[in-house]
């Protein structure tokens, strides 16, 4: 079946602008994650959704970052007043309901590369 998809693949924006990054998880996956991967680093956790609600948003760096998942499927990561330091690859992952086979595994999308100029 289809994997996790993310759009756009690449996004270039000017400092101070607002951006939205979209994630379509695998159908039926209840958990959804956002990670940020800066150049030369491993991914860092941002936020985790179980269904429609954010179960853990402890990784969001500041209040310019916000994410939603209104219907428990697609999620949007929103960044206000972008800064050059926000430039990174933003990865999304989804996971099946706990108790299902391989429910520990997070399936990653290809990421969105955000460049803030």
């Amino acid at each position, binding site marked *: 079946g289809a994997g996790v998809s993310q759009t756009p693949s690449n996004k270039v924006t000017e400092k101070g602008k607002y951006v939205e990054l979209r994630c379509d998880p695998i159908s039926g996956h209840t958990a959804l994650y956002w990670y940020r991967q800066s150049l030369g680093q*491993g*991914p*860092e956790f941002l936020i985790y959704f179980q269904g429609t609600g954010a179960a853990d948003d402890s990784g969001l760096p500041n209040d310019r970052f916000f994410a939603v998942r209104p219907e428990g499927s697609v999620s949007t990561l929103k960044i206000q007043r972008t800064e050059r330091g926000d430039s990174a690859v933003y990865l999304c992952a989804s996971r099946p309901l706990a108790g299902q086979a391989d429910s*520990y595994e997070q399936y990653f*999308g290809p990421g969105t590369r955000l460049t803030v100029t």
Partner: protein
Amino acid sequence: AQTVTQSQPEMSVQEAETVTLSCTYDTSENNYYLFWYKQPPSRQMILVIRQEAYKQQNATENRFSVNFQKAAKSFSLKISDSQLGDTAMYFCAFMKLGGDKIIFGKGTRLHILP
């Protein structure tokens, strides 16, 4: 807090050779998962192998195997008969059992040379 350390930023080996990537971690948890992920230039994170901490037997997936030393908090990945397609970034990662977020190391860039 959990941390994952990969001390080899970059490695190169000849095709068909065996290579070992090192990883150490720190946690006060007793039950957890450890993973090795592969990230080729396409950016897609691909799960290579996983190990449950409560299992003493080292995990194996075809040419990939791990050496899990729980007391030493060490989790190395061995790639046998390396292939050109193994060229990628490799990330060691930790997740609490029943937990959610994955903690990644900084990665090792592996080059397989023809």
